């Protein structure tokens, strides 16, 4: 049989009220821990989400290339299999480059609700203007659907993707390449492809390479133009896909790869090293934050431990009155949880204020004004509240066990 919780709470609050100052200091320790946890994690997660968003949106969520993950089976292997004789020095069969059945693959991808897909042909070209040459990676796209996959227009200056269709052999290069070549919009440049086709093309827009990471060496033209340049009419060597929820890219890619072969590369796979770095960053953040909350629970330990020591006489009299040892343990445990709960609640307020301040600080980077991206997710509050309450309970439980060991006879004998 245990005492009812209302009675234990009444006693616990009476103890805390008497030692109000120590209680408030311990509570502030928890609230500073929780407040900074919220502010720091909002910043870390906010910037990470922002970073991933840029990473995801600057390229298609999934890219299918005309590459397989394993080398193709050679006819000799198909015919004889893994027999007693190993064959070396076979003359490999030449595969026709390009995605086979690409219209069917396009259909299959588009059949998944919310998924958009576009064909593209890419390859290396040299662009010449006024005696200067730049080697670029040219991607031939269909302007009518390419913008559904990656919003290129957002980072274009001086024109739009759709302008590719308005002139004969339109071309888009990065601002940086434009500067290096000395070419402006409307200038005609000469493109020569790796297979030796040479064509004139007119620059219709620039990609702002400051705004889009990795765009410096990129060039865009019509799919048709690229097929002529690479002498591969009706051939496509890339399908670019956008999925409604970026987190789904990995599963959608795996599903389609199992069905069609080829290498369906999701953004997660493409950015694995960056994702690993983010995981390490998160581990560091949670380690530092846990340390702050751990230090906060030292305060709770101190105040509860002091209470237990100072209340030995009261513990003895409660035991004589008919309170069980676990009743007194619970009184002190409740005191710790109350300190933790008050600390977490005031920490929520502090954290919200800190976030408000952080969100209002403008940063100027090369003339542009930025604000720190913040993640104000409810689950950060849940983690901070849960961890601080749990550590406060542990910190209180350690000294509270001592309360149960107080022998009333020792105390009564000493006092009488």
């Amino acid at each position, binding site marked *: 049989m245990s005492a009812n919780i209302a009675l234990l709470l009444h006693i616990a609050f*009476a103890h805390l009220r008497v030692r109000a100052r120590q209680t408030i200091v311990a509570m502030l320790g928890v609230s500073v821990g929780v407040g900074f946890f919220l502010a720091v994690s909002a910043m870390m997660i906010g910037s990470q989400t922002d970073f991933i968003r840029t990473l995801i949106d600057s390229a298609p969520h999934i890219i299918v290339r005309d590459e397989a993950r394993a080398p193709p089976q050679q006819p000799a292997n198909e015919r004889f299999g893994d027999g007693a004789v190993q064959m070396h020095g076979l003359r490999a069969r030449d595969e026709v480059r390009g995605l086979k059945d690409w219209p069917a693959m396009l259909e299959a991808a588009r059949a998944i609700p919310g998924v958009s897909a576009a064909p593209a042909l890419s390859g290396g070209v040299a662009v010449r203007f006024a005696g200067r040459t730049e080697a670029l990676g040219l991607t031939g796209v269909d302007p009518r659907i390419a913008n559904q996959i990656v919003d290129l227009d957002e980072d274009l200056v001086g024109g739009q993707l759709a302008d590719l269709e308005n002139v004969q052999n339109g071309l888009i290069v990065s601002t940086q390449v434009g500067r290096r070549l000395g070419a402006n919009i409307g200038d005609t440049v000469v493109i020569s492809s790796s297979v030796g086709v040479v064509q004139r093309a007119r620059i219709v827009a620039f990609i702002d390479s400051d705004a889009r990471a990795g765009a410096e060496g990129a060039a865009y033209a019509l799919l048709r133009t690229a097929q002529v340049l690479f002498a591969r009419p009706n051939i496509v060597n890339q399908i670019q896909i956008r999925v409604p929820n970026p987190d789904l890219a990995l599963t959608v890619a795996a599903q389609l790869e199992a069905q069609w072969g080829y290498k369906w590369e999701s953004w997660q796979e493409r950015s694995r090293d960056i994702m690993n770095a983010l995981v390490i960053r998160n581990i560091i953040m949670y380690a530092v934050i846990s340390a702050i909350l751990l230090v906060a629970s030292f305060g709770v330990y101190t105040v509860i431990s002091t209470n237990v020591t100072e209340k030995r006489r009261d513990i003895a009299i409660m035991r004589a009155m008919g*309170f069980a040892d676990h009743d007194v343990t619970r009184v002190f445990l409740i005191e710790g949880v109350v300190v933790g709960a008050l600390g977490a609640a005031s920490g929520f307020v502090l954290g919200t204020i800190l976030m408000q301040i952080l969100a209002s600080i403008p940063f100027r980077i090369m003339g542009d004004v930025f604000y720190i991206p913040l993640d104000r997710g409810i689950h950060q509050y849940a983690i901070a509240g849960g961890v601080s309450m749990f550590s406060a309970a542990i910190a209180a439980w350690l000294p509270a066990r001592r309360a149960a060991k107080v022998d009333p006879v020792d105390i009564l004998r000493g*006092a009488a």
Partner: protein
Amino acid sequence: MSARLEARGVKRTLIDADDEVPLVRGVSFSVNAGEFVAILGPSGCGKSSLLYLLGLLDRPTEGEVLLDGAHTSGLSADERTRLRLEKIGFVFQFHFLLPEFTAMENVALPMRRLARLSRVEAEARATLLLDALGLKGEGRKRPSQMSGGQRQRVAIARSLANDPVLILCDEPTGNLDSVNSEMVVRVFQRLAHEEGRAIVCVTHDDNVAAAADRRIRMRDGEIVADER
């Protein structure tokens, strides 16, 4: 009359390192309902140790304590706590009230622990008990705002909270002047004779001894006389 409390060959030995210190060396007696018993003897004769054994705060090394005819030696710690809560009231030399609570809240605590009454009912009964001990209107004071005599009466009211059959006192008048002592003694007589409670009172006070129905004298952990 039935025996409320019975000690059968109770011994208590303190084992301190290699040294065995006998506190109580085999004590047997019984106390009936409505009987007011004083236990007398010089300091260190084992009176208080015996009281803690009778109050189930300590376990005898040998022998047994029976409460209301029931054996207590085989009980778990929780069961002994429960018995203390329901059947025994303690009054100590120093008032031993919880300083954070008012007089009324202190008296209500054992009732709220027993949880047969709601908090409101417990506090109403606490106020009645304080009134009966001449503390009408003092219930909202904290112990630190009261005189020694008032505090001791609050402690007596608290010992009565759960309507115990047995009240154990350790030098209840030790810190009181003669007027207050007299008053406390009369309260004990009323509790025994009118309400039929058994009262065992460890004391040095001749007035208490004179007022008791029976005087048990102890020396070196043993009963040397039992006078009616």
